[in-house]
């Protein structure tokens, strides 16, 4: 099972090494990890996707909490907004360009660079959407691909 965990940490040197080291040492599997700034300048937010059963995830959360520089750890459940971004350099000979543009539009992706034989396409969305788009692009020949990890946020209360 995949679990998404948001970790709020003090923005200090070495924090990423501590978190990465913890995962390695305890044998937890990181599927993806993103780090970035937050609304507060002295805090960073890591979004970590881990693979494991509930017991493993419980340990991950507890061990992350033990790090002195960790402010808050929360598991992000279903009712959340999750996004990834992916850049794809796809082979785009003149006769295929129309098709690719059409697919790009359907996925609300964007062509951000055009050259003689290829496009760079930017796609954002949840994991399934990004994966589906990548799969569709394969038939044209993906020359290069760069995919971020996930960022996520729990949805606000609707009532």
């Amino acid at each position, binding site marked *: 099972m995949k679990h998404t965990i948001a970790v709020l*940490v*003090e923005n200090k*040197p*070495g924090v990423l*090494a*501590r978190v990465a*080291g*913890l995962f390695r*040492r305890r044998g937890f599997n990181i599927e993806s990890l993103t780090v970035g700034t937050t609304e507060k300048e002295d805090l960073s937010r890591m979004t970590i996707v881990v693979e494991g059963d509930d*017991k493993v995830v*419980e*340990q991950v959360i*507890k*061990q992350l*909490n*033990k*790090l*002195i*520089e*960790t*402010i808050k750890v929360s598991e992000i459940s279903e009712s959340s907004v999750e996004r990834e971004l992916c850049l794809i350099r796809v082979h785009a000979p003149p006769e295929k360009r129309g098709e690719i543009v059409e697919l790009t539009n359907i996925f609300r992706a964007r062509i951000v660079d055009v050259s003689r034989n290829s496009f760079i396409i930017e796609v954002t969305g949840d994991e399934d959407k990004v994966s589906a788009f990548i799969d569709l692009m394969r038939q044209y020949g993906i020359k290069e691909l760069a995919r971020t990890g996930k960022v996520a946020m729990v949805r606000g209360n609707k009532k």
Partner: protein
Amino acid sequence: MRAADAIVKALEMEGIEVVFGIPGGAIIEVYDALYDSGIQHITTRHEQGATHAADGYARASGKVGVAFVTSGPGATNTVTGIATAYMDSSPIVVFTGQVPTSMIGNDAFQEADITGITMPVTKHNYLVTDAKDLLHTIKEAFYIASTGRPGPVLVDLPKDVTTADIDFNYPKRVSLPGYKPKLEGHPKQIARAAELIMKAERPVILAGGGVILSNASKELVELAETIPAFVVTTLMGKGSIPETHPLSLGFAGMHGTKYANYALSESDLIIAVGCRFSDRTTGNVAMFAPNAKIIHIDVDPAEIGKNVNVDVPIVGDAKKVLAKLKKAVEYKQRKEWEDRVNDWKRKYPLKYKKEGFKPQYVIERACEIMPDAIVTTEVGQNQMWAAQFFKVKYPRQFITSGGLGTMGFGFPAAMGAQVAFPEKTVIDIAGDGSFFMNIQELATCVNYEIPVKVLVLNNGYLGMVRQWQELFYKERYSATCIGCEKTGFEAIARGFGAIGITVEKPSEVDDALKEAKEIDAPVVIDFRVDYQANVFPMVPPGASLKEIIDEE
């Protein structure tokens, strides 16, 4: 003020009375500042010795132990000591010199990335890159080391940071938004625990090192007497209840008493306090205490549910939670269970074959002749025999490397304990193999008149490994015969300027121990014991606690 002077002043404000260490280029400034201070410095012969000594000092006294070492090799030499303290949650702060900030990352002379190296074996560590962060870092280091679940903290001090000029304003408080140990225990959980205790017919308390770290022995014994419940300890929990107490069942686990292991196996409720259910204590964890519900009290939430499933988790400080729990329960007679356990106690005492010169005998006699001595151990058979045959009477009396199992720990730890308690008798129950791992500290003991007594159970073997080879590897004694019967420990001791005694037979044991006890100087006794002696009873690897076996 020079930052180095500020460091020493900060230590004074923390109440530090003694530092163990070895100077060098990168930390020379701090040593220069120490020269004018009232803090005692013990120069050890190896940085591993310094960290174990700081650890032994901490375990014996309950205060934070401190070590100073230089950069590079000085720092890397502390790693085993730090890891040992980490595994047993011992509060030490290690200050390492570092190359100047301008040279970090350039592979400068004696540069080692000690914060990187020690990240997985410290509770927390710091590289101070700006002198203005120095004082609050030191404050945090001591606070983190000594609160919550204690542990080692390392502070790396680049040379230019120690020479900088700073204002001395030592903070009174720390600001650590991510570090707030929960101490009180949730009232609802405590109530649930009390309910389970009142219902239980066969309750057993399992007391770990956390009881000792939290100074909760009094509360533990009071709870045990109130319920009443038998108390089994882990190796690290030895001393949390006097082992002469009628409710004490000694320690459980691989080489624990049979009755402790039986009691855990047959129990219907285990009240675990400050223990982490290590594999050495639980045996095959899938078959651990099959009929018991488990209440687990620990200050570290990550320990709860890590190795065994728990019915009532209570996150909190052992001392506080035990006191609250005691108020929530009442006496209830459980005659049948009491009789059963006492019957096991009578039927299955610890025993050994008495012919020849047995190492167990030495420990039995030491326990008789120096009942109140602080006892440290090395690792191996000596450690297990010490745990089995030295009846511990008070907390912090028994000091051993339980988690990491570090050979070479006992002797420098004894040195640290002796520095904390100059008036007490401090003995290191040692193996011949282990003693060699930090034997150089004999010079330190002689130099500072630290009268530690080393009882070497000289069996000429890496005995514990030999035992496994005998039992599980068809007597193929690969690399375990170290021939220490050829080593003259008596002469070695004399060479260091200490007292050496050789004991060849049981009839000489008492005299040697009594003599050593009276000598106000370091003593090494070379007990030439039978090499064939093995540690029993034993839970074979992979077996459950119930399947504990005796010697044939």
